[in-house]
């Protein structure tokens, strides 16, 4: 059981937030499937994805919640902030309004996550240079002011997508290493892999009936 691809040391939980249509679901899809989804429908509630990555020789499973940008789902999506180790906050470089809303997203993120949550700013759709509406320097300044790490990405070409997810994980891992993230605290969004003692034969192990041999 400890062999195979699911042999990892930690689970990190992420959420992806930002206005509707900025490309949150496409970023997730690009990261987990390495494909661009051109005709992605609006997210209803939440979507979910996982991938196993490696940071400093440690395997880490990312559990990623992709939230709906539409206002009507705000109550539900807000509830997913808690227990996130990383928050990817996304705007669309071709739509200034999505950038202007960042301060309100950031307020939510700061209020609803724990102090150690790594917040990463992504300016998506960097492939659409001709339609650019937000200069890189401006967003970079905003990120610096607020202590956020920042990258421009393209879910379409895949540019920087991998880096954004991995860099966030590196920061979280660093926080574990230097002790600023307490693994015993609740809601850190980091779970050390549970060690399961092999279930002794005969006893009704929980979940046994979940398996079925037909």
């Amino acid at each position: 059981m400890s062999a195979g691809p699911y042999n990892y040391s930690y689970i990190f939980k992420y959420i992806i937030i930002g206005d509707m249509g900025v490309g949150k679901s496409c970023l997730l899809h690009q990261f987990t499937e390495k494909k661009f989804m051109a005709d992605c429908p609006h997210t209803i509630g939440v979507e979910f994805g996982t991938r196993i990555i490696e940071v400093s020789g440690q395997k880490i499973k990312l559990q990623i919640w992709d939230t709906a940008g539409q206002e009507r789902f705000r109550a539900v999506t807000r509830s997913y902030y808690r227990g996130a180790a990383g928050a990817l906050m996304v705007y669309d470089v071709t739509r200034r309004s999505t950038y202007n809303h960042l301060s309100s997203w950031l307020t939510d993120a700061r209020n609803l996550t724990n102090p150690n949550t790594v917040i990463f700013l992504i300016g998506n759709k960097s492939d659409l240079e001709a339609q650019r509406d937000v200069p890189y320097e401006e967003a970079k300044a905003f990120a610096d002011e607020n202590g956020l790490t920042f990258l421009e990405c393209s879910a379409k070409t895949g540019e920087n997508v991998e880096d954004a997810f991995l860099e966030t994980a590196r920061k979280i891992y660093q926080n574990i290493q230097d002790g600023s993230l307490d693994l015993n605290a609740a809601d850190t969004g980091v779970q050390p892999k549970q060690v399961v003692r092999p279930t002794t034969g005969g006893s009704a192990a929980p979940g046994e009936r979940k398996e079925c041999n037909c």
Partner: protein
Amino acid sequence: MAPIEKEEEIHAIVDDLSVRLGQLGDGWLTASEKAPKYFEFTPIELYAFTERLKLAEPTISETNTSADLSNTVDFLSRVKNLKIRGSRGYVRSSNIVCNSLSLSLHHCKNLLSLWVADFDVSRIEGISHLRKSLRRLVIHYSMSRIRDFFVKEELSVADFEDSWESLEEADFSFNHLEEIDDSIRSLKALVRLNVSQNRLTSIGSTLQHLPRLSYLDLSKNNIASVSGWSQLLGQISVLKIANNSIKSLEGIAKLYSLEVLDASDNQLDTIESVIFIGNLPCLEVLNLKGNKVRKVVEYRTRILEAFEERAGLVTLDGQPGDAHEKDTIAVRLALKKAKEEKEMVDRERKEKIERSVRYISNCEGSDTSPYGSFRNNL
């Protein structure tokens, strides 16, 4: 039935799942990579999970930090073979009535096989992701119309036109189907369809739109006629129509792709009602057990004889023709051939005579010739 109690129950069920799947889910999924198996959930578990996702609450339980909803979503988003087994009536002493539950498979993005038993399929939602991945669908005791599974309000018109691009096998046996409705047209990749043990009286006209369908099991239905099936079934190689009330096989006389035909336990009473299929060039297995035609004198040789020189390649009722049967058929075919040859020679001779008569009459001048006027009258 107070909503609070129901919500408590939803939490209890999902927390329990999340704890167990957090501990064991990865191990199970890894093991099932090597030896594929179904993982079984009850409708109430999947219903509770579906409802839990709608609640505006953190993914981690207040009371139990290892009960993280992410574990359940994680498992469901990776599981390949899923079984949903309901039961009739009430679930435990629950506040939740099983039959009224709706559940969503929206997060099951990697399903290869889905098996549903004893749960009304019209209550299964969120199936649009399954269109890409699903290869095998088994539904028993759970539907009275095929469209109840495939046609959902949530789907847009464009979705309907999208086909189930991977679904190769559908087993809808043991249901209450009365027809094979139009919704099956979207199963463009379907190779095997089992609709045995239903209430079908005909096959409708939709199966001809399934270009890859080659295996069709219609056993134990109420079908009385196969009339027109050669046109309605494209490339079927295995056809099972056992346990119906079919009186004649004429309708499949031109189903040229047919290799295996099980027509046992029908109302095929005479040799004539069967031998239409003698022309099928690929037929190798024919089962007529449980039909009255088997009581007819020389039943086996007369049926096999219909296949003429291919008679030796056909297995009838589980047995190929034995040496004696083959001899008899060979003799009969030889006699038949001799007879045909004689007829041909006779015919040729007659034509030759006629030609010379015509020649003579033409030489004599048509008006005066008794033969000529005879011919003109024809």
